[in-house]
């Protein structure tokens, strides 16, 4: 693998590894997404499904079908 890195360096690939800023953004993004997904899943799995069946009811909206 070091050979690959050396080849890339020669080719101008600048394989410098993760910088501090890169690490912070990567870790921040992962934590944000993981946090949001975990929060949602915990709430979803913890919620009881609504036992009532479906019912139809009028909505208080103006459909603009009358002038």
């Amino acid at each position: 693998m070091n050979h690959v890195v050396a080849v890339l360096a020669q080719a101008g690939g600048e394989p410098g590894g993760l910088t501090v800023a890169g690490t912070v953004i990567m870790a921040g993004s992962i934590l944000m997404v993981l946090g949001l997904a975990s929060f949602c899943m915990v709430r979803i799995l913890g919620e009881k499904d609504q036992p009532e069946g479906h019912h139809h009811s009028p909505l208080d909206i103006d459909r603009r079908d009358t002038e």
Partner: protein
Amino acid sequence: MSDTPELALPKKENWNSKLGVVLAVAGSAVGLGNFLRFPGQAVNNGGGAFMIPYIISFLVLGIPIAWCEWTMGRMGGRYGQNSAPGIMYALYRRTPAKFVGAMTLLIPVVIYMYYVVLEAWCLDYCIEFFKGGFAETFAKATAETANHQAEVDAIVGATGTHFGEHAGMGEHGALFSGGRMIWLVLFCFLVNFFIIYQGVTRGIETFCKWAMPALLICAVIILVRVLTLPDITVGLGFMWNPQWDKLYDPQVWLAASGQIFFSLSVGFGLILCYSSYLRSNDDVVLTSLSASSTNEFCEVILGGMIVVPTAFLFLGAGAASESTFNLGFTTIPAIMHFMPGGNFFGAVWFGLLFLAAVTSSLSMLQPAIAFMEDGFGVKRRASVAMLGVITAIGAAGVMYFSKGALAMDHTDFWCNLMMIVAATFQVLIFGWVIGAEKGVKEMNRGADVRVPRGVAIMIRFVTPTFLIVILGAWSYNKLPGYLEQMNPEKQGEVAERAAYVEAITAHFEPENLAQEVLDGKILGILGPEGETVIATTLVEWLREADDAAAEARKEAAADANIARLVFLGIIVFFILLVVLSDIACRNRIGRMIAVAEKEGAGLEAGS
């Protein structure tokens, strides 16, 4: 409407569980775009810096549109409507709603026509890795390579050739002249329609309940393999190190908002349809957020840490910055050659892409099925059969006109454009017709996590503005190019010139001229770019290229006509759907809504 004969509402199908609907919607959103498009967009638009506009777009664009769609879908479901035209008719009776309803019905069906071909590509690659076919190809390709770079070039060349052949990129009709691709597409069709025939609960929900965890497990296996590779931080650095200056580039912001928009499957009727199967007090806020966050998990964590870091590590910057298709079907197979256990991981990777594609394609079929059932009372068996025939004709067209993925590319472009238009209208209907305040109140009905009041302002002003900007910028950037590709005369001229340029370059090759000198000679012989080349005035030695130039001109003009055909096909299909939606809304859908209102009024009076 009151003088129309009454209609008994059909028994309403509902999701079995909240997790089921979350996985189904997440399944519809998680697709090839998460694993292939996102990393490509990020690495070409500032690396880690891309995450800033991406997260802002997620909060301002993705989440609010998803909430609007979920809420409107559930509202439509209360009137017994599961299709976009029915839902729109239940909420808004003016002409724009009819067009939006028809558009959101058309988009998923048309996307399915090419998506099923992509699905077959994934399955083909999965099989190829599973039976070790790529290992043989790679062994032949690298038999005489002298160093690492030569090996990389040989492998990427071999995977590129394989992709070109299996996707029929070389010439139109190639996929119909033998090979297994046609059978794989047929198999994918059967799988999709078998599941969809089972219905929402027994088919889609059951399938997604095992397919999504299976997909996640496959992705985590690959992720662990990638993160345990020596020197992987080199690849992660290439993907995540921020280029802050890119934040000044408006194209980066456009790319980020486009990625969020297309990734969350908002705007084209899937969420409207799926959420209409919710019960009237089911939580749309948390369910929507859960589906979106599952999508983001797949995109940012799995998509962002697998493909580009490994591609850079093994193949270098060029291969890691390829377009979506090349990254997916040329670069990744090449990576597997260098990765220990590549055959196994290659099969797992393309297996997971196949599952992701199936869960997405299922969601593209259900809205049309629901429309035929709701709008015309067609039984499930008949609606599945009719949709099967319609999509088979479209998919056959996409497969036949496969050179340079011509039909696929143009279909994708027009659908993307319509998605942004449809999403803009949906948000405007939610914010200005239903009313943002009233809509948010409805959104919060049965919600475990309540939406803050500020969201109403965002939905009314910020999100539609953002969408209109995206629509304008997207059209400005891409529309002229695609319209030009539909001009046979122009395309013919470009191709003819390219053929002469090739001949001139070959003629002067022995002289080893600098590029600038060569460009000057080309300009001197052919005249400025954009001007018509007059063959009779060309130098004698170049007249040998006349036949090739004429052939190139003819082919390019034919391709432009195919692009026109795709566009016209979509327009005709759209007009047909507008007419059908109108007929359905004036008849069966209208009567169903009237009955639902009567039942609802009875319930309210009873309570």
